[in-house]
């Protein structure tokens, strides 16, 4: 099973929930940080990193001698990463999405694929769990291709087969967030019972619903705000999987960078129950699917 832990915005406790799930999961998991722009799961899980592999995207390199300025490449590139200015042909590597259309179409075979580094894939262990994270190169703007490479790494053997996977997804509802939850069997949304929490939860719910995955909610700092998030979940049929109370010992463990399920006994019990809830949710038809069938 693949579980993605997501939230409509940062700072809701998403990473704490991911790390806690990994630590109480009944069998060794693969914990994956797909928040490649700002990875921080490792700060809680303290993994021993044993491998670091660069990830690249292919970009065009043009042989000026062979190029006849026929414009086929610049016409096909949706991203304007190649331009022809009078007699000058120029590439804009940082705008290239690596689709390969240009070197496929070039009638003169003047284009060969070169590479641009997207970032690194780091992998190792944290206790019984395997740990994998993607880290975007500073200045790099495209995270989805690096995220795809991290997923490819997960499928490449490496002893990950047969393990359940817990994904710490990037916050938000944009392309990277969708990309991270796309392959999950269950999506866990982490939120807070505040007006902002409700707003971001509703956005995330809307963005992910078309994927047709079972979704449930974990409410963090459950006693700080109002009942609106609860009412919303009830109205829209979102299961509340767990409520993490706002409690001093939890806040302290969190502040020390500890995994709350490991540091606070009541939290271990709560997360063990959450694992059961997630497993129940897995295999239940999702709201979106029911709607489609109706």
């Amino acid at each position, binding site marked *: 099973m693949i579980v993605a832990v997501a939230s409509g915005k940062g700072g809701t406790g998403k990473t704490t929930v991911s790390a806690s799930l990994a630590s109480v999961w009944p069998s060794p998991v693969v914990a994956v940080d797909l928040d490649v722009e700002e990875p921080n799961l490792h700060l809680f899980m303290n993994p021993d990193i044993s491998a670091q592999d660069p990830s690249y995207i292919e970009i065009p390199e043009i042989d000026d001698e062979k190029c006849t300025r026929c414009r086929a490449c*610049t016409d096909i590139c949706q*991203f*304007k*990463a190649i*331009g022809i200015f*009078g007699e*000058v042909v*120029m590439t804009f590597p940082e*705008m290239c999405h690596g689709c390969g259309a240009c070197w496929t179409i070039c009638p003169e075979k003047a284009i060969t694929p070169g590479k641009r580094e997207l970032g690194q894939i780091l992998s190792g262990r944290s206790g019984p769990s395997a740990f994998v994270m993607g880290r975007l190169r500073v200045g790099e703007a495209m995270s989805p291709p690096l995220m795809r490479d991290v997923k490819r790494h997960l499928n490449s053997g490496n002893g990950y087969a047969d393990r359940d996977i817990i994904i710490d997804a990037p916050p938000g509802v944009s392309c990277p967030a969708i990309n991270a939850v796309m392959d999950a069997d269950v999506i866990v949304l982490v939120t807070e019972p505040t007006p902002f929490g409700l707003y971001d939860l509703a956005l995330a719910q809307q963005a992910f619903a078309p994927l047709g995955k079972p979704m449930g909610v974990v409410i963090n700092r459950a006693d700080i705000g109002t009942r609106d998030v609860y009412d919303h979940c009830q109205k829209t049929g979102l299961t509340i999987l767990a409520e993490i109370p706002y409690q001093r010992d939890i806040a302290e463990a969190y502040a020390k960078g500890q995994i709350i399920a490991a540091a606070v006994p009541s939290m271990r019990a709560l997360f063990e129950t959450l694992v059961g809830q997630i497993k129940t949710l897995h295999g239940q038809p999702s709201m979106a699917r029911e709607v489609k069938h109706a």
Partner: protein
Amino acid sequence: MEKIAVSSEGPDMDARVDPRFGRAAGFIIIDPDTMAFEYVDNGSSQVMAQGAGIQAAEIVAATGARVLLTGFVGPKAFQALNAAGITIGQNVDNLTVREAVQRFQAGDVPVADAPNSRGHRS
């Protein structure tokens, strides 16, 4: 003399200079010796999510113009225009196309050696 391109809000010499280069409505290409001109539409660049400046630079380069008068040019388009050997006069806005050309001919338009567009997204 070399042809001059001016980013323009409309198809004639009395239209206003469009301050945006990449997303300009179009370009007026002027032969300064005869003051004959033609209008080239930039509509296809205007609707682009990214790369509008690069596409606009391609359009201008293809007209054979060697000088561009406009408001703001982003860094990538600047790089492209430079490589194509096109001289850029920036901050020529709040004028008509005709006035901009006259100013350039009088030597009153400083030639830019750096892009001036801030907050450029692509």
